[in-house]
């Protein structure tokens, strides 16, 4: 155990350009980025949460690590990077963090190829590209995973209506969450559900089943891939 702790505490080494070191650097940066992203995702409070920003937390450490491998104690390359980035930044106003990541990625790839670090460029592009696809596929950073919003209004006098609505929603969805409930008039409640449909192609069937329920007056369904979290 003490050997492991010693290995952890005293393992700082200068990065080198060999393949194994490169892989270690990228994987380590990816793991650290994941940790940063998850912590940010779990601890963020407020309305300005952005999935794109959270996803960038995963990619940025990898890019910066690649940058440091590229520079490798070379001041001229460091200053060159600084200059290029400053030029790009001032010339283009980047609204989205994800755009910044891609710009940075492009810059770093260009510098790697330009300084003859072809292996680093290739490995970096493959790894970062894979990470980007991973972030896309897993919808990394999305706090709420749903693809459909169902708004409906019903008469709340009868309890059976709620149960019937739940049965229908349960039949069609993997997960459902009551987003809001508002009594618009005495006895009439306007509710909104966030659903992850079991089969998005049968959305219309869901709508027709809901409309077929007694006491349900208005049904509207929105297909929603991403919320306003973007």
């Amino acid at each position: 155990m003490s050997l492991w702790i010693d290995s952890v505490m005293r393992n700082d080494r200068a990065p080198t350009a060999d393949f194994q070191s490169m892989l270690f650097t990228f994987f380590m940066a990816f793991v650290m980025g994941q940790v940063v992203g998850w912590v940010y995702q779990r601890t963020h409070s407020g309305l300005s949460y952005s999935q794109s920003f959270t996803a960038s937390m995963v990619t940025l450490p990898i890019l910066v690590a690649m940058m440091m491998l590229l520079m490798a104690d070379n001041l001229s390359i460091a200053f060159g990077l600084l200059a290029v980035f400053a030029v790009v930044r001032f010339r283009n106003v980047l609204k989205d963090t994800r755009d910044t990541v891609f710009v940075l990625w492009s810059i770093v790839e260009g510098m790697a190829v330009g300084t003859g670090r072809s292996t680093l460029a290739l490995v970096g592009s493959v790894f970062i590209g894979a990470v980007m696809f991973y972030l896309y596929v897993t919808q990394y950073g999305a706090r709420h995973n749903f693809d459909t919003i169902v708004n409906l209004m019903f008469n709340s006098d009868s309890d059976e209506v709620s149960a019937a609505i739940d049965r229908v929603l349960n039949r069609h969805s993997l997960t459902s969450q009551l987003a809001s409930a508002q009594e618009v008039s005495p006895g009439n409640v306007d509710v909104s559900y966030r659903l992850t449909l079991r089969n998005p192609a049968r959305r219309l069937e869901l709508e027709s089943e809901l409309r077929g329920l007694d006491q349900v007056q208005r049904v509207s369904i929105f297909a929603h891939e991403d919320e306003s979290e973007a």
Partner: protein
Amino acid sequence: MPSTANRIPVPLPHRIRYLLSQQLQGVLFLLSLVAVGVLWMRRTPRVIISGQVEMIQVTVPASQDGVLQWSEPAITRFDRVQKGVTAIAKLDVSESLLEMQTLTAERRQLEAELDAQRQSLSRDQIEWDRQTDEDHRQRKQQTIDLQRAQLDAREHVDALRREWGDLDQRHRLLLIKHQETKQQITTADVEIKTLNAQLARIKSLVEQRMSPASESTLIEQQLALVRKTQTDAVELEKTIANHLLELNRQTQATGERLQGALAEQERITLIADAKQGVAPTDRASPGLSSLDSAAMLEPYVQALVVQDVKIQALAHKIASNQILAPVSGAITEIHQPPGTFVRGGDPIVTIASDQSRWIVAYLDQKDRQSVAPNSKVQITLVGTESLQVESAVAEIGNHYESIPEELLRNMDVQQWGVPIKIPLPPGISTTPGQLVQLVIY
């Protein structure tokens, strides 16, 4: 509780998508952690330093004293030379050639003297052989005479010894007899006195008619007898004394003769020993022994040997007047212009060798313990990052020394390090002095 009996089946693509979105993050994170762990444990301590391809500069000295001349064609800076082939310069050897002629003439003279000496010895040998036969006969006769004389002298000495022995024995016997006679005389004197006293007493008694006169007569007879005995003893004692004197004289004479005989015998023995000390010449011997001949010719032979040594040294000196390049490379500096008189050992040119066998680098004190002989090294030639070769640390120095400027990380700060040597892998082309990047595992 809503029934799940009528639940819509989830299409496979949607199921996969849902799984990916829910599970993939965790799975990938765990896999990444495993990969990091594995790669972490496989990371070995590394030292990254700069090194330099060994630069060997050889200063070519003059092989001997002489006036320097350039070879044809004359060399200039940056000319390439080949080891053992390219002639850099030569030294004027005209004086050495004259000296060689002198030495050669001297050697011929020495050879002539040696031959003359050999002929002289040969003539002496012939004369020696001739004289040897006569000397041999004379020596043999002398030997026989000496032996005979020795034998005679021995016999004479033995006879004299026997005679002397007899005389000595007779002398002893006479001495004993003489002593006895003296004793008889002394006894007779005592007896006479006793008898006289007795007679006087008897006579007084006779006068006093107290004793018969026959007693005095008897005593007088005894007295006369004793006196007669004494007289005879005295006569005998005189005779013995005379004989003793005679014997002493004879003994002395015999002793002197014996002394003479012994001296003569010793003299003859000395002569015989002296004769034996000289090795008798044998007719079969070469006369002058081979050792004698060699001893007489030795100075000439030695002089020839010395002369040969001088000639060889001078020949070597003449042969080495041409100075060839000791290593292959390029001339970086010319120290002496042609026409200069140089002494043996003076530098003439400096050559930067093409062949470098080592890469030299320096380890900081903090990295010293991480590196050991045979540690794997990855070499990257500066300026050609794509060219990487592997080697191993061959040797680590045992002292800290000042790091050369070209290997300093910071020119303004003097650093100290332990030198290490790394052999250049075969097949790569390097230039002496070239900087390289080293990663030592």
